[in-house]
């Protein structure tokens, strides 16, 4: 139910983007004079996708009873997620337009901002898992919290791949 509602939330933002772009059919997209930092976002995409591998590694580690692997995987995932979010904030500061400029900028900030909010929530969950893992929680038999955190983080990653493709590439 939760994931379903999240998919619908992102779906409504994607619908707005496609309405503005396809139904209105502007002559240029992005409008003339607007440039998106595609390369920086590509590097950011690599960072976020890599973080999916590290959270998967963390879960596999604790399933084998490897607590050091769990801690290392979670910390690496958190650091990569934090780097992604920090880079996105810097991108916002230097991009040279605001959400109020036109429909293109509104949909750009709406979609990437919605995703950024999800990354922030994911980082908060990861931080809780890191604290718990350093306090000795989780074992090979009991690691439900890490599993749920991993599912949420993968969801955030899948959404970013779609956002990057539709906003920056398409």
């Amino acid at each position, binding site marked *: 139910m939760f994931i379903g509602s999240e998919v619908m939330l992102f779906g409504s933002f994607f619908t707005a983007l496609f309405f503005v772009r396809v139904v209105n059919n502007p002559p240029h997209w992005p409008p003339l004079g607007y440039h998106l930092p595609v390369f920086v976002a590509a590097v950011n995409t690599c960072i976020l996708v890599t973080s999916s591998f590290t959270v*998967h590694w963390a879960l596999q580690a604790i399933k084998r009873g490897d607590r050091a692997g769990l801690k290392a995987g979670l910390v690496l995932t958190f650091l990569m997620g934090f780097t992604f979010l920090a880079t996105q904030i810097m991108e916002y500061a230097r991009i040279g337009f605001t959400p109020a400029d036109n429909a293109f900028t509104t949909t750009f900030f709406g979609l990437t901002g919605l995703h950024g909010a999800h990354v922030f929530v994911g980082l908060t969950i990861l931080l809780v898992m890191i604290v718990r893992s350093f306090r000795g*929680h989780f074992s090979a038999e009991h690691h439900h*919290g890490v599993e749920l955190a991993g599912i949420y983080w993968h969801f955030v990653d899948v959404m970013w791949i*779609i956002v990057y*493709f539709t906003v920056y590439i398409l």
Partner: protein
Amino acid sequence: MKNPFRSEADAFRLVIGALVYFGAIAIAAAAGGRWWAVAVFVVLTAAVGIWFFRREARERGTVSVPTRPRAQDERRVLVVANETVAGAALRDEIRRVVEGARANVLVVTPALNSPLRHWVSDEDGARAAAEDRLGRSVAELDRLGIDADGEVGDADPLQAIEDALRTFDADLIVISTHPEGRSNWLERGVVSSARERFTVPITHVVVDLEAEAAVGA
């Protein structure tokens, strides 16, 4: 349809799939231009669609649990209880409903948790406590000669029942609660909601653990 976020492993596979799907389209666009990208998009989408429908058809044949043939004297009872799972009143009720029949009992204990722990995904303690209560209850039923299995279910008792019925075709559901006034499940109308939601007959057992403890002391 199988939820692609049902487990971390499934979600991880979806990340890889999304990466390959969108990556291939982007590479085709960069290398061959727009029409190459459209061609790759059409081919990949068709491939994903065929794979999806084939998997759905395959799973429809294996996941659904048909009502299996049973002996005339077989009784399949689904018991849903949390803190009251070890109560004597519940044990007596189970013994009563399976009396004279070949009993097959599944005890489901929802892993109840505090809202704060639920939101920070700290469910391990709740599950461990539920498993502990469940183990003692199943052992007690086994001691009474009743063939019983147990599993920890979803924190929502209605969801726990629904999940259990997918694999266990019960002909009676027994819901055990604390007495009125002390029962969170009764306050939330779990028993009446279950009667509306499931076609299987439902028996409600009230277990007064305090009274049982006083009698035992």
